[in-house]
C-alpha cells in the first residue's frame, strides 16, 4: 500500500481558499472512481477539517500553513478489479502547526441538543470510514488528521480506470502530524 501522496498541497489558513481545496478533493476523488455523492462527501469532510484547523487550531489567523495530502491506496482501479479489490480507498491527511491537543478530547457532540456549532467532528466521522487525530511527533507543535474513505464498487462498467498506486515511501510535508481540531 502506497504511502506517498499523489497530491500534496500547502494552503494558507484563509477561508477564501476552502472552495479551491474542495474542488480539488472532489475532482481527485472523481478520477479515483468515487461516485458523485462520495466525492461531495469527501469534499465536505475536508472542508470541515480545514475549518477546524482555521478556527480552533489557528484562532482564525489567515496566514498559517495547512498541508493537505491525498493518496489513493489499493492499486490500479479498473472495472475488472473493482469488485475484487475492496481495499481501495482514498487516504487524506491534513497537517498543521497549531498548538497540540489531546486527541482523545476530540469528539462529536450530542446532536439531540440543537445549538449552533460543534458539528464539524460529527460530519467528518459520519462521512469517513476511518478517522484518526494525533499529535505530530517531529516537534512540540502541530496536529495530524488522517481520514480514509473506501471506494465502494457500483458495478458500473467504465468506472475505476483512474488512479495508479505509487511505490511506497514515507511522505513528509514541512513539520509532521496535525489534526483538524474539533469543536466538540
Amino acid at each position, binding site marked *: 500500500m502506497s504511502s506517498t501522496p499523489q497530491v500534496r498541497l500547502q494552503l494558507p489558513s484563509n*477561508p477564501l481558499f*476552502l472552495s479551491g481545496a*474542495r474542488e480539488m478533493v472532489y475532482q481527485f476523488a472523481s478520477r479515483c472512481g468515487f461516485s458523485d455523492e462520495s466525492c461531495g*462527501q469527501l469534499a*465536505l469532510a475536508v472542508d470541515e477539517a480545514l475549518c477546524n484547523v482555521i*478556527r480552533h487550531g489557528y484562532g482564525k489567523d489567515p496566514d498559517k500553513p495547512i498541508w493537505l495530502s491525498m493518496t489513493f491506496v489499493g492499486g490500479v482501479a479498473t472495472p475488472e478489479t473493482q469488485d475484487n479489490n475492496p481495499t481501495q480507498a482514498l487516504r487524506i491527511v491534513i497537517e498543521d502547526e497549531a498548538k497540540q491537543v489531546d486527541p482523545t478530547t476530540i469528539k462529536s457532540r450530542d446532536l439531540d441538543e440543537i*445549538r*449552533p*456549532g460543534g458539528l464539524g467532528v*460529527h460530519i467528518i466521522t459520519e462521512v469517513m470510514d476511518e478517522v484518526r487525530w494525533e499529535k505530530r511527533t517531529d516537534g512540540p507543535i502541530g496536529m495530524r488528521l488522517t481520514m480514509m474513505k473506501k471506494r465502494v464498487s457500483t458495478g458500473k462498467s467504465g468506472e475505476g480506470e483512474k488512479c495508479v498506486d505509487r511505490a511506497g515511501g514515507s511522505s513528509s510535508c514541512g513539520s509532521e502530524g496535525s489534526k483538524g481540531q474539533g469543536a466538540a
Partner: protein
Amino acid sequence: MAEGTTMGSLTLTTRTEGSAVILTASGDVDLSGSPLLRQELKKHAGKKIVVDLSAVPYMDSSGLATLVEAMQTSRKGGGQLFLCALGDRVRSIFSIAKLESVFKIVPSVEAALAA
C-alpha cells in the same frame, strides 16, 4: 428593493415582499461567506425571513450553525424562518447533522410566503 453583497464564496440579495424579508443566496455557504448570511439574518431578526437556497450548491457546518442560530433567535423573538429550495447536496448535510426536522423547509419562496 434588492441589495446584493458578496463575501467570500457567497452573494446575498435582500428584498422585501409585504412583511416578509427574502434573502436570496448565491454560491457556497462556507466559512468564507457564512458571516455575511449571519449578519443579514441578525439584521432582520423578529421578522418573517425566507432564505432562498436554490442557487446554493454547497453548505458546510458554518452555514448550518448560522441557520440554527437564526432559527433559535426567530423562535424567541416571534419571527419565522423558512428555508427554500434546498438542493440535494445541501439537503444531505442537513440530514447528516440531523437538522432536517428542525427547520421549516419548503420547496419554493412562494410556498414560504403563503405559509
